């Protein structure tokens, strides 16, 4: 009797273990969606202000500004859990380049990494360089594993924090982090729509075009140097242009009659997929960016648009209304093997294949006729609605680490740009000015 109980108990435990492992395997890339995902407990002891340095805005001290940006970056990395340093007894101002006795108490309280630093301006001169030193203590090694020294003008203090945050993510995951990534988007200027680019956190927006008419739906080149987008020449025809960010130089890649929309460069940059109605209705095409040879990928009476490359470059997701309302389909990069992916609801569009390949984000119309974001696996087996509530959500684009999605929404009235984690948490609005911001697209990491 007792033996049998034991065997049953053992069997149950085993089944339980298998279940845990299996559920883990299914979600292994969507780490942030896992409630049991172990973030690394990290304490930012502080970035000490040196020499009464002032930021360009005045008043707010440089160290405090860098610390604030660093904390937000670390939180958004979703790799670390920020530990409140209050009560740990660590005094940032007393820390040098060696482990501090106060770290012992922090480690006993579960802290794995302690970060601190100092920042100031070399001389009293406002135009002088900002210096920032940062240090990292690792509880596993029980030593200061290293540091960074940054120098630059006052205009790059946010970049210092971003770079330090990315170094932290890099050290603990081997991936570059997203703190230095950018988001390109479309913003309304008068009745025109122009391209802009900003930091991933919404700071430092810069205007890229000033055509006075419509520029739409930008996408990055994999090397971050270029954007491809639709532009209206003389208001009457659409072209697909390439823009070099460093100098504003432009090239026209596609110039035909009809719609020429939703360009997307392949992950290796060798192909441009786009939709064109130059031969009738909107069809998908693929251009070899070296030879400029164009291959038509789809042939049917419906509209085909919004190609999004799988990270492998072997397949694309796209929108098609060949079966009535718009739905998301998949197609091999050579135009073969077309199959429908979405079946729930009568309007699914704007697919975006995640950089890890395991999810496709898209705009789904709910039974209440709201346009929200959904996620679906490329095999169609799992589907979740990511956003809820009022407003039209559009243009989902993945962060290069696959943990966030940026999108536009009219949830607050005017169209603005928002960021959300792939588990639906941490919804944050990142644009606050302008009358219409749309079509965000997240840059690759560098």
């Amino acid at each position, binding site marked *: 009797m007792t033996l049998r109980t034991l065997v049953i108990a053992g069997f149950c435990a085993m089944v339980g273990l*298998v279940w845990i*492992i*299996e559920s883990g*395997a299914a979600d*292994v*890339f969507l780490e942030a969606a896992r409630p049991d995902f172990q973030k690394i407990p990290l304490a930012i002891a502080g970035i000490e202000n040196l020499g009464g340095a002032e930021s360009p805005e005045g008043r707010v001290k440089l160290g405090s500004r860098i610390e604030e940006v660093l904390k937000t970056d670390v939180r958004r990395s979703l790799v670390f859990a920020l530990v409140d340093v209050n009560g740990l007894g660590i005094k940032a101002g007393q820390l040098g380049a060696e482990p501090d006795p106060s770290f012992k108490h922090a480690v006993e309280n579960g802290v794995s990494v302690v970060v601190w630093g100092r920042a100031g301006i070399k001389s009293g001169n406002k135009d002088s360089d900002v210096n920032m030193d940062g240090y990292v203590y690792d509880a596993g090694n029980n030593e*200061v594993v290293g*540091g960074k020294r940054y*120098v630059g*003008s006052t*205009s*790059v203090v946010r*970049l210092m924090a971003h*770079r330090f945050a990315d170094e932290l993510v890099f*050290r603990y*995951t081997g*991936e570059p982090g997203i703190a*230095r990534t950018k988001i390109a988007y479309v913003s309304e200027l008068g009745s*025109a729509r122009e391209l802009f680019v900003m930091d991933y956190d919404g700071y430092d927006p810069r*205007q890229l075009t*000033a*055509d*006075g*008419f419509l520029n*739409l*739906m930008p996408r990055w*080149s*994999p*090397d971050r*140097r*270029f954007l491809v987008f639709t532009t*209206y020449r*003389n*208001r*009457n025809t659409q072209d697909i242009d390439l823009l*070099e*960010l*460093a100098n*504003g*130089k*432009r*090239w026209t*890649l596609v110039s035909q009659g*009809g719609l020429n*929309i*939703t360009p997307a460069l392949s992950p*290796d*940059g060798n192909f441009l997929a786009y939709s064109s109605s130059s031969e009738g209705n909107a069809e998908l095409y693929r251009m070899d*960016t070296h030879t400029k040879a164009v291959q038509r990928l789809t042939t049917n009476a419906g*509209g085909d*648009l*919004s190609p999004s490359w799988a990270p492998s470059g072997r397949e694309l997701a796209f*929108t098609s*209304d060949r079966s009535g309302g718009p739905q998301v389909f998949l197609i091999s990069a050579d135009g073969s093997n077309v199959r429908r992916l979405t079946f729930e609801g009568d309007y699914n*569009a*704007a697919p975006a294949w995640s950089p890890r390949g395991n999810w496709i984000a898209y705009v789904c*119309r709910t039974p209440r006729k709201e*346009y929200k974001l959904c996620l679906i696996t490329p095999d169609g087996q799992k589907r979740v609605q990511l956003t809820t509530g009022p407003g039209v959500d559009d243009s989902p684009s993945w962060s290069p680490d696959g943990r966030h999605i940026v999108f536009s929404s009219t949830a607050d*009235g005017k169209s603005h740009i928002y960021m959300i984690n792939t588990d639906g948490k941490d919804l944050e609005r990142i644009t606050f000015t302008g009358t219409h911001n749309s079509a965000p697209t997240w840059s690759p990491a*560098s």
Partner: protein
Amino acid sequence: MKTLVVTPLPVILGVLLLLSPACSRKAVQSGGDTRALQEEMARGGAKGGTSSSFPDTSLSGKDETSSLRGFDRNPLEERLGGGGHNGNGTVTPGNTLMAKSDPGGAARQLAEIRAEQTASTAAGLRDVFFTYDSFSITDEGRHALTSDAEWIKSNPLVQLKIEGHCDERGTSAYNLVLGEKRAKAVRNYLVELGVVPQHLSVVSYGKERPFCTEHGEHCYSMNRRGHLVVKVGK
């Protein structure tokens, strides 16, 4: 029990995949030839500006100058540039991003749009309105187009542009397709009424140039439109 054997494989594969970027990133770090990149960018710039040749968008031109360098016990000073204040020895990207444009372009667009509006109003052209999600011409639309067709036929020198517009619901991209369907439905009906197709062109603005910017059916119905415009300029 079969699952016991199967399960670890995806986990191992997953772990391998998660670790693999680390390897490639490290390999890439030791590279990073700044001068070659700058030369390439200079070449790309020199031949730019025409549609006959465009630069290499493949990863072969990848900017490695901004690679992370890892923490160091005796860290070297890293100078950060960008932010519009590129200094010497810049090691980050953040290259100055500037709006480049034909300075007269926006003003010329505005002037032409006004001229088009004036000419279209003077012609008394009537627009066509559509129901939600639809591109079929309603009875009211047929009436409007019948009178438009008469005017067009009696003014054979005029080139007409049919703009397809949509309300703000739905995606930007799909609304461009829907807008084109609306514009083409208008064109096809005008041709049925005897208008010479060579006098008509279509363009879709999707939901990007709304007539009304409030949220609600009043605006939505105004924006679901086939808009007839007398062409000015090219």
